[in-house]
């Protein structure tokens, strides 16, 4: 363990935190946890609520799994993790019901369904069971935040196009009710609030990401190609020069 710590590169914590947000974004890159991403993104507020609850569960379960990683036998680890996750989900559910009942009724059964969200179990299995508590906490924070940002991105388009603007204060009632109408009433596309709209928005976002990725790969390939041609030319010139020099020497 000590040796491992010594070898740790500088800035690992930062990298560990940031990877969940961009490079390994659970929703847009790994395509995990798609059910709540489609079901709870009708409004930005619901997306924030879902993301928050999800992050809390992920942090708690990741830390506990990491603490118990040497105690849980290899053979029964999946059921053990599921029970840990389900316990935290139940706690979070009861707290939400007591203090944010509006959020509770909006998300409905999807709070319970955090239990079967592949990201939580996946992080427990892939990361928390192998790393120390602090690293697991950072990992959970990054992943949770990345997931929340992804949900907000989806909700942004769905609420903007489907309802024509944003409403805050409906679910988090401690915020004063504010409405921001961007598209005039009557011109919004209601379809984006329906399930079909959720699929379309998700598909288009993935297509845009794939487009950017393809473009980057193309650019990189082009640069490499040019570099290759340049190198080949340089080698040719060098060979020519050498031949001329040789000829001069003779």
């Amino acid at each position, binding site marked *: 363990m000590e040796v491992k710590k010594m070898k740790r590169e500088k800035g690992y914590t930062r990298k560990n935190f940031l990877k969940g947000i961009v490079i390994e974004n659970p929703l847009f890159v790994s395509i995990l946890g798609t059910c709540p991403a489609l*079901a709870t993104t009708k409004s930005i507020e619901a997306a924030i609520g879902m993301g928050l609850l999800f992050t809390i569960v992920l942090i708690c379960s990741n830390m506990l799994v990491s603490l118990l990683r040497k105690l849980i036998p290899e053979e029964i680890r999946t059921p053990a993790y599921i029970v840990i996750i389900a316990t935290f989900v139940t706690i979070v559910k009861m707290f939400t019901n007591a203090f944010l009942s509006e959020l509770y009724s909006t998300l409905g059964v999807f709070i319970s369904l955090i239990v079967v969200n592949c990201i939580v179990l996946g992080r427990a299995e892939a990361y928390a069971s192998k790393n120390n508590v602090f690293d697991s906490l950072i990992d959970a924070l990054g992943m949770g935040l990345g997931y929340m940002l992804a949900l907000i991105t989806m909700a942004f388009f769905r609420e903007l196009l489907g309802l024509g603007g944003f409403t805050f204060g409906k679910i988090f009632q401690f915020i004063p009710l504010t409405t921001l109408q961007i598209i005039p009433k009557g011109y919004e596309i209601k379809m984006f609030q329906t399930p079909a709209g959720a699929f379309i928005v998700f598909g288009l976002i993935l297509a845009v990401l794939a487009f950017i990725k393809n473009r980057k790969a193309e650019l990189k390939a082009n640069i490499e190609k040019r570099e290759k041609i340049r190198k080949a030319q340089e080698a040719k010139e060098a060979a020519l020069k050498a031949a001329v020099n040789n000829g001069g020497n003779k």
Partner: protein
Amino acid sequence: MNMFIAFLLAIITSMLVDNVVLSRFYGICPFLGVSKKVKSSLGMGVAVVFVIILATVICWPLYNYVLVPAGIPYLDTVAYILVIASLVQLVGLFIKKYSPGLYKTLGIYLPLITTNCAVLGVAQSNTDQGLGFVESLANGLGTSVGFLLIIVVFSCIRVRLESSNTPKAFKGLPIALITAAIMAIAFMGLQGLFVRG
């Protein structure tokens, strides 16, 4: 007779009108992940039907005759997920012993079902809505058969998509999601079919 018709209506409602995948968003992960081939989607769908029906049959009495009398109804999620996880293991063992052929086709999908939200979603929503046993069974049956139907149809479309000429950025998942959106629009047309009762 009247009850039978109500039972049938409830099944059709949860199968077509309120389809699991396209309007309730349960089980999107296997819907996208295991639908590249018709055969594997069929296997996944049948396994889900199996597990959902068994889970409904077990979870309803568990909640009403064990958790409620014991005064711990808030532990429903923990209890259900344990039931589902062990059920999946048991079904796997059972099929392996009695029908190795079936195990070969279903076996690899069984572990995936534990984290399929459709199973827990059905059990949980049955409890949350306070449905009776027969209604729960109808809901479970309708939901799971609806899942089977939609994943098989979707995989048939995806096989065609594979060989069609799609823009490069849309290859794979994006075009599949757009397809699912069009399917959802088609299923929205069924919403006027029955009044949920």
